[in-house]
């Protein structure tokens, strides 16, 4: 009896101690109202996540008092959360739609950060050089109209290549994805039939093929199944050494996807980029432009509620599009062209809190 009583007391004291410790431990971390440190939260696109994580860790080294989290939950989630103001910044691969912007509680700015590309990969035996595709041929394959690898239309782009008589198996993304959005946006631009029948979006209704989950799902199925064709992000294809097709751009050149070819596409369409920077750069002009590429954006409110957080946010964004760009290439993202950096600077400078600008334009 007395033993059990004593042990009970011991347990009770322990609980009190642990609870007390927990309270003490919680206090400094909870809330950004404490002295000096600011914490920011962001959420959105998965595609730039590796780069943003690199940014956060590098930025944290120079600014230890600013704590930034980024959750890669997908572009759709990023747009949703910034609209609901549950995060300090959102991120999306495709620009927000007009109706989404209208229904947001404040004006949202699009700050481009880097560019990515979508490449076409395939599994065909006995090829010595990369396959070449015209835009119409890609559209017809993904529409299910070109069914065989030795179709004359494919052969026309690939003189001297022996193509098998096998059926083509299309592999596409099954999960909603910015990669699919960029790819279908491109197909909608180059094929009226695609635009009418399928259209562009994160989860299109594919006319043919099998769906793989994520870049890894598509890659796995393309690698495992002979005579397949699919599309993945450039970074993913490079890291996994996948065969990548050359695509004919609007100038008529067959372009191999590369970081420089993507930046060229962005530079080529810089003149046509609207004031709010919401632009699709698929099928861009320019002799060296790779046609299936896109910006990825960070989304912020133009008018920040909390001046301290807002200041930390614009400083981080400024750092990102300048110092941060040098981490892009090693992670297989294309850095912004110079004139887009200038225009993004203006956007960052226009962010205010309670009517006053958070950054002084003179730098």
């Amino acid at each position, binding site marked *: 009896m007395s033993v059990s009583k004593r042990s009970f007391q011991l347990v009770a004291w322990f609980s009190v101690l642990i609870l007390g410790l927990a309270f003490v431990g919680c206090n400094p971390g909870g809330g950004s109202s404490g002295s000096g440190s600011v914490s920011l939260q962001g959420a959105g696109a998965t595609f730039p996540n590796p780069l943003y994580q690199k940014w956060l860790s590098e930025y944290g080294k120079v600014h230890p008092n600013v704590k930034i989290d980024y959750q890669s939950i997908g572009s759709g989630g990023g747009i949703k959360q910034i609209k609901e103001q549950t995060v300090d910044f959102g991120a999306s691969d495709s620009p927000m739609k007009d109706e989404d912007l209208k229904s947001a509680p404040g004006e949202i700015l699009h700050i481009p950060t880097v560019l990515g590309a979508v490449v076409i990969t395939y599994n065909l035996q006995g090829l010595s050089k990369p396959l070449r595709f015209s835009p119409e041929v890609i559209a017809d394959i993904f529409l299910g109209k070109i069914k065989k690898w030795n179709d004359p239309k494919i052969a026309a782009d690939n003189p001297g290549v022996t193509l098998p008589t096998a059926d083509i198996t299309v592999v596409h993304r099954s999960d909603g994805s910015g990669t699919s959005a960029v790819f279908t946006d491109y197909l909608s631009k180059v094929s009226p039939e695609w635009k009418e029948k399928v259209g562009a979006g994160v989860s299109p209704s594919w006319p043919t*093929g099998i769906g793989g989950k994520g870049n890894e799902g598509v890659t796995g199925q393309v690698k495992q199944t002979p005579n397949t064709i699919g599309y993945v992000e450039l970074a993913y294809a490079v890291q996994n050494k996948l065969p990548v097709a050359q695509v004919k751009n609007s100038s008529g050149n067959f372009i191999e996807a590369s970081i420089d070819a993507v930046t060229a596409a962005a530079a080529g369409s810089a003149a046509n980029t609207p004031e709010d920077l919401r632009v699709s750069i698929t099928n861009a002009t320019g002799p060296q432009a790779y046609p299936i590429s896109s910006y990825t954006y960070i989304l912020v409110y133009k008018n920040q509620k909390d001046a301290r957080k807002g200041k930390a946010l614009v400083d981080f964004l400024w750092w990102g599009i300048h110092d941060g760009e040098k981490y892009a290439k090693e992670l297989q993202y294309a850095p912004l062209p110079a004139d887009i950096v200038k225009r993004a600077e203006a956007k960052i400078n226009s962010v205010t809190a309670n009517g006053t600008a958070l950054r002084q334009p003179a730098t």
Partner: protein
Amino acid sequence: MSAVTVGQSSHWRRVLSPTGNTGDVVFRILMLLAALLMVGIVVAKAIALSADSMLSLRQFGFGFLTSQQWNPIKGEFGALPFVYGTVASSLIALLISVPFSLGISIFLVEQAPYYIARPVGFLVELLAAIPSVVYGLWGIFVLAPVLRQYVEPALARWLGWLPFFRGTITGIGLLTGGIILAIMVTPIISAVVRDVLAAVPGSQREAALALGATKWEMIRVVLVNGAPGIAGAVILGLGRALGETMAVTMVIGNRPEISFSLFEPSYTIASAIANEFTEATGDLYLSALVELGLILFLVTFIVNGIARLLVWNVTRNTGGVGRAA
């Protein structure tokens, strides 16, 4: 430690605990709360799913269940291909897994010597602990190529006269999804069936053998005795199969189309939600996905109900046989 005097207990304490023991009352209330919590969660889930799918329910009505169109870009949403894929893949899984599971359990309980039964039983249970994403990757990199190169061509050759085994052979599709599910539910079913068979009293076996039954006839007696428990195990496995997401997504091909061919890609409800929820923008699209969840809820309910009816039917009959014997 019980120092409470019985005489002072109030009326409703007597109702809660006829013995009048305070500990009993507390225990009883706790257990009641635990049970109510379960019911509450199910009800709350049904309400939440219905509320969030109201937009889609209003827009499409009953047509949501019969439409085969799923086109988020054009705002057309229909659930039929997903329902078909879910039910078909689970049925394939059970067709393959139930005979295997019964075989494993019978072997472990009735035939295997102790030094084999223990490690094999342990390995089977270990299968249940493998994360489903690992099953999925294994499905892509090992199972699908094997099916594509050997199994599916053979099926097409020998059974190609059936509509189930026609079409393009890619190794990805309804059959692959069903087989992955079968492998995943087998440890669950066989573990439960093993315990059920082990719980059948030894006297039953002795009685059967004493009456001159062969080993096979004795096992049949044991199976009949364990029938309700075996059915329960199958229902448990079915529940897992209906709700499994990740592994199926990776091998089923994710194509919302109804085809009788098991080689063709298909799509399950759980996969569709997992695939599209993160990037779903637009209220109607989200609402349609939630309604898919509601339908999965109902499908699970109905399938479980049918299974229970079957069990009830079987046990009623075998009960009669048991009495007669």
